[in-house]
């Protein structure tokens, strides 16, 4: 039994050794993807190009507008003297945001009344718009507080000392600088592994079906489970090597901390790899050509990324979508990745995810073995 499994494994690695393109595919794209995601995947909003229209030309209006350039969040790209140009600037996506101060701004402030700062924002990307408006709000609030205190200081210094204030103290746990790379890099390890392992496994089996060697193997005394193990163990090894590679690049290059127990992560990786191997196996039993396997893989992978918590929080999804995520191995693996990398938590916290992956693996294995028997006929 072990002889036959070993024989399959040796054969798989011989083929891999001979396939230059396959070796390239195992090493270069995962690293590239890690770098691309690490640099490009971010929710932070920085250097927003803004246009300003100051129709008040007062000390106060200039003071307020200058605060926008100091933070680094905004860059004044255009100073407009009228509103006509604005439509084409925002329409062409050159500038996503504009600030407008009406005449009389300073006068209203000096009279102690409410003055307006108008924000025009391109709402196409609602997420970015929301975040940018949030920053504007912070800056405007800070300005009005400072302005009020200054006025009070000038007019009634005694009273100014007694005005109460609430100041916000931010204490983000696990990621004190709220660095979005720290959030994404562990996630990228999971999504790259998922994509690599599912497609490699599915393609490897379907290719043998296409060239007829699968049939040739099936007339030998090999048993179906030996065949399945012989075909999946090599990709387990390859998957493990890829996880290590991507994880090392991610942590060394992007300086993402690893605070947990490596063995806990290893257990999670093993369980996750087994579940993804089974997804690949299942896809291979449902396809008779590599093209079909490609299409099926695509149908699986896209929703698997979206419904995993990789970028979009699962808790914000509608209930029905949340239910689907429970069948997604990536969902659990991402919790394990972020838990071990950033939070440093152990099995005491992560056991439900481990258990879920083990259950998913068993269910998928049963399904793919059943399908595998059928697909012969």
């Amino acid at each position, binding site marked *: 039994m072990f002889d*036959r499994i070993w024989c399959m494994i040796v054969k798989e690695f011989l083929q891999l050794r001979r396939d230059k393109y396959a070796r390239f595919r195992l090493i270069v794209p995962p690293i590239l993807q890690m770098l691309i995601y690490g640099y490009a995947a971010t929710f932070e909003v920085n250097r927003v190009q803004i246009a300003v229209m100051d129709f008040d030309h007062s000390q106060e209006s200039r003071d307020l507008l200058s605060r926008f350039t100091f933070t680094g969040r905004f860059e004044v790209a255009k100073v407009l003297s009228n509103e006509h140009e604005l439509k084409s600037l925002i329409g062409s996506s050159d500038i996503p945001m504009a600030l407008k101060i009406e005449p009389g701004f300073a006068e209203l402030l000096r009279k102690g009344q409410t003055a307006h700062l108008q924000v025009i924002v391109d709402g196409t990307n609602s997420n970015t718009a929301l975040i940018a408006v949030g920053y504007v709000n912070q800056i405007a609030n800070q300005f009005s507080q400072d302005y009020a205190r200054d006025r009070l200081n000038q007019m009634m210094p005694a009273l100014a000392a007694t005005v109460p204030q609430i100041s916000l103290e931010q204490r983000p746990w696990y990621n004190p600088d709220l660095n979005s790379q720290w959030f994404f890099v562990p996630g990228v390890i999971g999504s790259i592994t998922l994509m690599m392992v599912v497609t490699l496994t599915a393609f490897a089996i379907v290719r043998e079906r296409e060239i007829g*060697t699968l049939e040739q193997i099936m*007339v030998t005394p090999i048993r179906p489970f030996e065949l399945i193990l012989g075909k999946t163990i090599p990709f387990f090894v390859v998957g493990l090597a890829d996880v290590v590679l991507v994880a090392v690049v991610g942590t060394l290059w992007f300086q993402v901390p690893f605070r947990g127990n490596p063995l806990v992560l290893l257990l999670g990786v093993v369980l996750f790899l087994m579940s993804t191997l089974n997804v690949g196996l299942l896809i291979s039993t449902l396809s008779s050509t590599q093209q079909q396997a490609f299409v099926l893989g695509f149908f699986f992978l896209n929703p698997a990324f979206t419904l995993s918590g990789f970028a979009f929080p699962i808790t914000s999804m509608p209930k029905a979508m949340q239910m689907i995520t429970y069948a997604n191995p990536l969902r659990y693996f991402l919790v394990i990745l972020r838990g071990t990398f950033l939070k440093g938590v152990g099995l005491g916290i992560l056991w439900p995810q481990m258990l879920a992956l083990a259950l998913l693996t068993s269910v998928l294995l049963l399904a793919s073995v059943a399908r595998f028997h059928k697909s012969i006929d």
Partner: protein
Amino acid sequence: MNDVPSIVVDQLVKRFGAFTAVNQVSFEIRSGEIFGLLGPNGSGKSTIIRMLCGLLTPSSGSATVVGFDVARQAEDVRRHIGYMSQKFSLYNDLTAIENLQFFAGLYGVKGRALDERIAWAIKMSGLAGSEQLLTGELSGGWKQRLALGCAVLHRPRVLFLDEPTAGVDPLSRRQFWELIHQMSREGVTILVTTHYMDEAEYCNRLALIDEGRIVEMGTPTEIKQTAVKGDLLLIECSPLGGGLAAIKQAPGVIDASVFGAALHVVVSAGRDPVTELPAFLAGHDVRVGRIEPISPSLEDAFVSLTGSRALSSEPPQ
């Protein structure tokens, strides 16, 4: 050759949905016999072999190979059989020797037997000195012999060959059949499918398959004699098509069909067609060249058994 049946097929049926690919097929093959399944593409030959190898489950009926039931004891069956399909299913990205080692491993051939069998397979396939070549770089004939080598590393008692010589040059085909005959002499039972008539002649016995049924069974000689009821004539005439149409109306003619550039005409026995027919054709504006009695070929037999549907439209290369 002895009389112990190595393969027993009884009322075997395989349906794919509403389509019946194999219909009530029964035959027995003795140990050491070369048994051929001859029929056009899609006649159900491969389906029969695939059921006997345990790759397909029979819809009804039963079959045993070296005493094991193909449906219930497929694993036992597989230990005793070799199978070679028309696609020469080897790994093109492995070397010849790596392919042999791989299949030897799957069949559990090890130790001294392993070296011995691999050396034998290399010699048999004529690959000595080219063991390290990638299989994909080998020519068709080499690949075919290597595939045969892979299929018999474990000294199977039964060898299934599904269209083994498709796309192989004539010299390689002859060498291949010599190997098959040698294995048969050593007691290996061989079941081979083909749609090449000349190849069918190499078999000890044949079953002619058409639309999933056996239409005739026997030695090639028996089949040729019994299938063609009457005397067979070869007639060269011009025009060929006009000659065919006319001769079907001639007295005593049972059947006629075009074979290459001439007609094969079956006439009821006891007539004198060599004088009668040219006269008849001349009356229909058909000029007759050569006319002579010939002994029937398997193709004649097949045509007369299945109602003049030609087996292979082209002769093998």
